[in-house]
């Protein structure tokens, strides 16, 4: 069955550093992959979508890579800020958005 893995442990980093989150998936080959941000008490909010023929995609301080051979996506936040603290969810593309458990990012001032 399809499986999506994200680091369950929280990632703690200092303000200004680059945060890197990992999403691994198995047993399927999605044509695209989405990343969402979820704040406590709120619903997930879409951030970026990357297609299988795109190696990398950027949006402001965000960068996503998609390696279909490794079945992995990396999500980077450069020059991180305390306001970036949240849980980040990946959703390797299927017809119905299906999410990993998410990784909590904590950016310390």
């Amino acid at each position, binding site marked *: 069955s399809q499986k999506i893995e994200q680091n369950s442990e929280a990632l703690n980093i200092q303000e200004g550093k680059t945060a890197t989150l990992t999403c691994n998936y198995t047993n399927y080959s999605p044509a695209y992959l989405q990343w969402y941000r979820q704040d406590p008490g*709120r*619903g997930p909010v*879409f951030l970026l*979508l990357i297609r299988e023929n795109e190696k990398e995609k950027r949006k402001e301080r965000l960068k996503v890579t998609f390696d279909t051979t490794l079945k992995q996506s990396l999500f980077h936040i450069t020059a991180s800020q305390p306001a970036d603290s949240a849980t980040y*969810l990946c959703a390797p*593309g*299927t*017809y119905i958005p299906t999410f990993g458990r998410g990784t909590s990012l904590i950016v310390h001032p």
Partner: protein
Amino acid sequence: DTAVSQTPKYLVTQMGNDKSIKCEQNLGHDTMYWYKQDSKKFLKIMFSYNNKELIINETVPNRFSPKSPDKAHLNLHINSLELGDSAVYFCASSRQGSNTEAFFGQGTRLTVV
């Protein structure tokens, strides 16, 4: 303007009761979803509707029944509530087809006592 709105935001009820959660989207989307997020924060799909028709029904007890009166609404009815139903329920919508982002409501925190 709220794109996807759910009511109520909080719902506390006793075991055995029947309750409903309402969801409305004003984005003109054809597809709507219900997700359940448990205490471990795992967001799991429950139902998906496309143009008022059920597309997917994951392994969900029959006590849960979605109802879509029109494309803009997808309500969730839950009968005979159990303690294990306590969770946050999210409604979402998207344009028809794959490769589209989902827009989520703010969630309904259901507590069964």
